[in-house]
């Protein structure tokens, strides 16, 4: 034990004297977590709280188009801006080009007339099926006019889709309203009362969103809850740069010659490095979680809710750290130079993070990636963390996630020992 303790002490001393490396190991993930959470949180707020600025050029200016503007406002998604100075489509393009607005809708001339005509035509068809005589003057085309939506190319497709959804919803409301009005008029020969119209048009089935959790958590998952676990894992695995280099440095330096001539198994050196860096990963996680819980609210970001099962959190963090250390040691053993260890280490972590669902949600992965995803240890780390942070599960609930993680770690251990044997180091 004294030999192991002395080796751990040596590794800690070397590690703590590399101030730049140590700062990067702790600062990099903190900066990443803050930046990514802030960005994602502002996107979330833009869609859900701050509203999307929508420029409207209303060429029609009649009842239905004004009704459409009101309906768009009611959707609750848009901050509507109708600029009177806009005279044509070019003015809109100029506004978008100068990024005064990122989206703009043009309501064509005679839009109201067309919608009313369509409402009458639809009503007529419906009444004809019921053998109720309708106004013969309504025998007109039921084609509606296009609403043109301009957008800046920087807007991502997912963002445009949600805007389109909001717009379609408003259009549906307005067109349905006039069809209902028209039908009522034909049948009852009088205008529909406002109260009845509201009852028909307004949604009678409100949707309540409930986050499904195993621990009856009532909080809504936010950008912090999603990002902190992901970037903590990323940081843990990024020790590959420091630990991989440390193994290579030891292999290439003269110290390996002396170590091999002393009556101590070289495996002690590897075990010591694992223990040292597992402690580093635990500290990284503690620092990032503490920042999420205490610093984020002060920065206007949602606070991190720490899972109630602290022992499970500790076990998962320990396993993630062990897996990260095992991976880094493997890289260090098989790499012949520090450049190889650093280059391959960094690229492999980014790739494993990408296929593991840290950069793109795993449910959004193409089916061909679903199998590869399961080979990434970062995926299982993330699933285990999500089981605790988002689903409020306990150790039993995340057993199916930590078992593959443990299996991958043990395989990496075997691979490392094989590498040591092959390179005649043990």
């Amino acid at each position, binding site marked *: 034990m*004294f*030999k192991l*303790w*002395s*080796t751990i*002490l*040596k590794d800690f*001393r*070397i590690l703590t*004297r*590399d101030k730049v490396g140590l700062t990067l190991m702790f600062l990099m993930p903190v900066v990443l977590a803050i930046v990514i959470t802030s960005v994602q949180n502002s996107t979330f707020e833009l869609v859900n709280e701050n509203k999307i600025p929508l420029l409207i050029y209303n060429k029609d200016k009649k009842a239905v188009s004004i009704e459409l503007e009101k309906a768009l406002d009611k959707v609750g998604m848009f901050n509507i801006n109708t600029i009177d100075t806009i005279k044509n489509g070019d003015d809109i393009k100029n506004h978008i080009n100068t990024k005064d607005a990122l989206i703009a809708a043009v309501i064509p001339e005679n839009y109201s007339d067309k919608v009313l005509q369509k409402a009458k035509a639809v009503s007529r068809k419906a009444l004809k099926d019921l053998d109720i005589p309708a106004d013969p003057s309504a025998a007109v085309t039921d084609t509606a006019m296009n609403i043109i939506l301009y957008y800046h190319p920087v807007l991502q497709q997912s963002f445009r889709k949600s805007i389109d959804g909001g717009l379609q919803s408003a259009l549906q409301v307005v067109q349905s309203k006039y069809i209902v009005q028209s039908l009522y008029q034909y049948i009852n020969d009088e205008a529909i009362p406002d109260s009845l119209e509201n009852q028909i048009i307004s949604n009678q089935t409100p949707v309540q969103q409930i986050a499904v959790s195993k621990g009856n958590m009532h909080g809504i998952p936010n950008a912090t809850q999603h990002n902190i676990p992901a970037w903590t894992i990323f940081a843990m695995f990024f020790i590959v740069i420091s630990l991989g280099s440390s193994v290579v440095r030891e292999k290439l*330096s*003269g*110290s390996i*010659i*002396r*170590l*091999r*001539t*002393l*009556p*101590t198994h070289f495996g*002690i050196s590897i075990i010591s490095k694992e223990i040292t860096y597992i402690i580093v990963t635990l500290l990284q996680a503690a620092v990032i979680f503490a920042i999420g819980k205490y610093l984020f609210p002060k920065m206007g970001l949602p606070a991190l809710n720490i899972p109630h099962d602290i022992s499970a959190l500790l076990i998962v963090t320990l396993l993630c750290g062990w897996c990260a250390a095992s991976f880094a040691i493997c890289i260090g053993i098989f790499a012949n130079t520090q450049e190889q260890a650093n280059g391959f280490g960094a690229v492999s972590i980014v790739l494993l993070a990408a296929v593991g669902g840290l950069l793109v949600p795993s449910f959004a992965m193409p089916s061909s990636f679903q199998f590869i995803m399961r080979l990434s240890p970062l995926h299982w780390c993330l699933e285990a963390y999500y089981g605790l942070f988002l689903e409020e599960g306990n150790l039993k609930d995340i057993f199916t996630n930590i078992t593959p993680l443990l299996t991958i770690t043990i395989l990496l251990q075997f691979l490392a020992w094989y590498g040591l044997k092959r390179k*005649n180091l043990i």
Partner: protein
Amino acid sequence: MTYLLVTNTISIQNLDFTYKGSAQKLINNLSLHIQKGDRFGIFGPNGAGKTTLMNLMTGLLPYSSGSIQLLGNEIKTNRNKIKTLFGFVPQDFSFYHELSPAENMEFFGAWAGLHKKQIKERTGELLNILSLTHVRDTPVKNFSGGMKRRVNLAIAVMHEPEILFLDEPTVGVDVQTRYAIIDYLKSLNEKGTTLVYTSHHLKEAEDLCNTVAMIDEGNIIVHDSLENLLKDHLQDGLEGLFLNLTGRAYRD
């Protein structure tokens, strides 16, 4: 009648060694005996097999056939035991530059099998002998070449080995440090440590070694006391003897 019992500290018999992937034997049926208390010098031109022989004797390289025994222990079968018997001063600085001499000695002392108390005592003693006490807690990376050589030596003798292998122990040091190191090695030898030394610095070797072996093309070409060799080959120094036996042509 008095019997003088001469024991071999190192005994090498019919040793062969070939590097993986190489068709040519680097050590070819080599036999050599080094006696207890010798200050034994192994010399030869570049590529002759000196460092390879040193690595074989310290167990760093596995040999394919033949035998190497250290104090009666076959290296192949007593790997862990033989590691407690010798110390090694490699040509490269074999320590952690980020650590101080005391921290390096603490770590390597533990790996050599010493207890905490022994490490503390030996560290103080060796730092004092090698004039490193004033920098005991300063990271070695800030040291001069001479100071680093002394640290390299101090670590190797932490566990008071019976045999000390030295591969160019004074490369790149000033005259003062060289004399200090050689004097210290002689004092160790007087206390019973067998020294096995290799260097290209033949004047220094002449001062240190009492027995010499010349190696060329993987085999021993001469092996005797320095005095006898100089007498037999009518030379007044090791350098003349070296050139006389190995010639003047480039070897690498």
